[in-house]
């Protein structure tokens, strides 16, 4: 099983950035429809995750990560 700390930290970063309650940051939550993320915040989220995990994220690779679950899965893959 993937490192749940990565998942938890990813969700926390999302919650902090988008200023939503952590409970709302479920795997099924759609960034735009459910969490109200704007285009510019998408860039900021990548930067926040880069800083949280000290990694470099390719924007292109994450462009299709439209839900929290997809983002978590991606982060778990690159952090490992």
């Amino acid at each position, binding site marked *: 099983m993937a490192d749940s700390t990565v998942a938890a930290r990813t969700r926390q970063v999302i919650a902090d950035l988008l200023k939503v309650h952590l409970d709302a940051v479920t795997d099924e939550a759609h960034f*735009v429809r459910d969490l109200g993320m704007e285009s510019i915040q998408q860039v*900021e989220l990548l930067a926040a995750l880069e800083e949280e995990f000290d990694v470099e994220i390719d*924007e292109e690779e994450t462009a299709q990560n439209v839900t929290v679950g997809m983002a978590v899965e991606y982060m778990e893959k690159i952090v490992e």
Partner: protein
Amino acid sequence: MTDYRRLTEAEIGQLISQGCLANEWHRIEVAEPFEPYRLRHVHFLGDVRIGRLGRAVEVEGVTKTSSIFSASLCNVTIGHDCYIKHVGVHIANYDIGDRVAIVNTGLIVADPGATFGAGTEVEAVNEAGGRGVLLYPELSAQVAHLLAMHRYRPDLVARLEEMIHRRVETIRSDRGRIDDDVEILDVSEMRNVNVGTAARLVGPEFLKNGTVLSDAEAVTFIGSGVVARNFIIGERSIVTQGAILDTCFVGQGCKIGKQLSAENSLFFANCEAFHGECVSVLAGPYSVTHHKSTLLIAGHFSFYNAGSGSNMSNHMYKLGPVHQGILERGSKTGSFSYLIWPSRVGPFSVVIGKNMANFDLADLPFSYVEVKEGRSYVTPGFNLQTVGTVRDGAKWPVRDRRRGPVKRDLIHFQVFSPFTVGRMLRGEARLTKLAAETDRSVEEVAFEGALIRRLLLKRGAKYYRNAVNAWLAEQIMDRIDPVLDDGLDAARQRLKPDAAAAGAQEWVDLCGLLVARDRLASLVDDVEAGSIGDLEALADRLAALHAAYPRDEWNYVVAVWQERFGQALHEMDGEALAGVADLLLTTRGKDLRMILNDAGKEFAVTSRLGFGADGSPEDCDADFDAVRGTFETNSFVLDMQQKLAALEQRVEVFKTRVLAFGEKVPG
């Protein structure tokens, strides 16, 4: 050469019987063959000369027979085959060309010493004055920019104004001029207005102190309800639908209409202005404002688009409307955005929201500026990977409405150029430094009056870095493409700097003309010294600056590459050149894919809200596809995909060729 003669007694008798009047019949001259019955109810005053009548002339698409009915003519010369009918007051002190139609017009008069709009001072950019631009017919965006924006060179301004005053004196006359093939229909009053060849004035309300430039290849149209005072309107422009112009210049190929109100404003090539209001605006080429509730005031714009309700203000302080602002080329303001002057927005940026901060974002081109909780935030470089920037760059060259041999405004259309690349280099450096110096505990940093989220500093620098590298790589590949089959020596020769071109340095945007700063400095020095002594010489020099762009651009590439990568281009071998191609593929390929991703948002679920009214979810998609089409068939998407494929192929071919050079750099 036409021979004119006086009227015979019989002709005078016939004219009188046809309701014509004159106190001094001997001051009337006519051309042969003269047929008196073609003049009815004409009142002659002073010296009147009439050309041949009786041939066909086109009036609003209907062929009529040239003649003069129901008009008072005072000190007027009329060319051949004119059609003049129902002039309510009189035509006085005009020279009218051939095949001119003047119908249902109240008054056309020229006063002694008229200058027809030339010499008018337009208080552009700063409503309170201090940046006045003197008008003359050949005014270009570049000369206007120098006059308005280079007030720190008083000798330059004085010299330019002196040249313009001399030009004005060549225009000053006691007589107005209406050139061949002009139509003037339903004009209430026209005073001190010169009208160029083939111009059509159909229904303007009032025209005073102006020049309508026009020629057969570039016909100018002034339409219904227009009120214009102290103006010059350029060739192939359309000014209509109740537009109000007071102390304005309208350049070539512009469209002004739909009750737009403008004062003390300059509109250069291909500007469009409808509905709103413009005050003290210097609108460089391709500035567009289409919507009601938009106020553009005290600003310098170019390649600009105003969203509906765009607004700005220039006097939050008590000393009057003294503030000014600059939106550099390619920038846009979103619907109901607001900017408080003084501020400067960098090239190709987007401004959204009510911005109450004064900021200078010249070093952050291609950025988004938005407002959150009343504060202005910049996202640097965000506009580098958007559909909008790509579409804008493509649309301007094909929308050049100017025709005819002379295109006065010198325009470089490049989105990426030493000008914007230079700004990105500065932005990259500043953002990188800020990122290094800012502690992680800090959420946002101040940047020249605006704020940047700390997390975006590095990413903004990365966007700029990517864009600069893509541009450099592409320039290098373009440079040696013609000699790819000629071997390494030929390639290296091409990669050398151009000894005759400007050295690498900062570039400036002279309202559409991109030029190395040294070249501009040389021009300014020459004007001040008098070695550029008249407006023609000035125009020639500016044209030379325009033509110098490709060579100067190349030297810029050479210098920046050297500084950035520590590598002299002309010493590269095949492997190094293949590396350049890889760099282009990495950077530009990424850009293209991100732009495709941006385009994809237009087809996402959130873009389908409201579709499929009264139907099922399936109907929503069907409705959307019927109205908007699909991502797969969208022309922009297909174009980007083709560009991506072409890029990949190009890189492959390029690498194959340069690797075949074979030679390695010694050591």
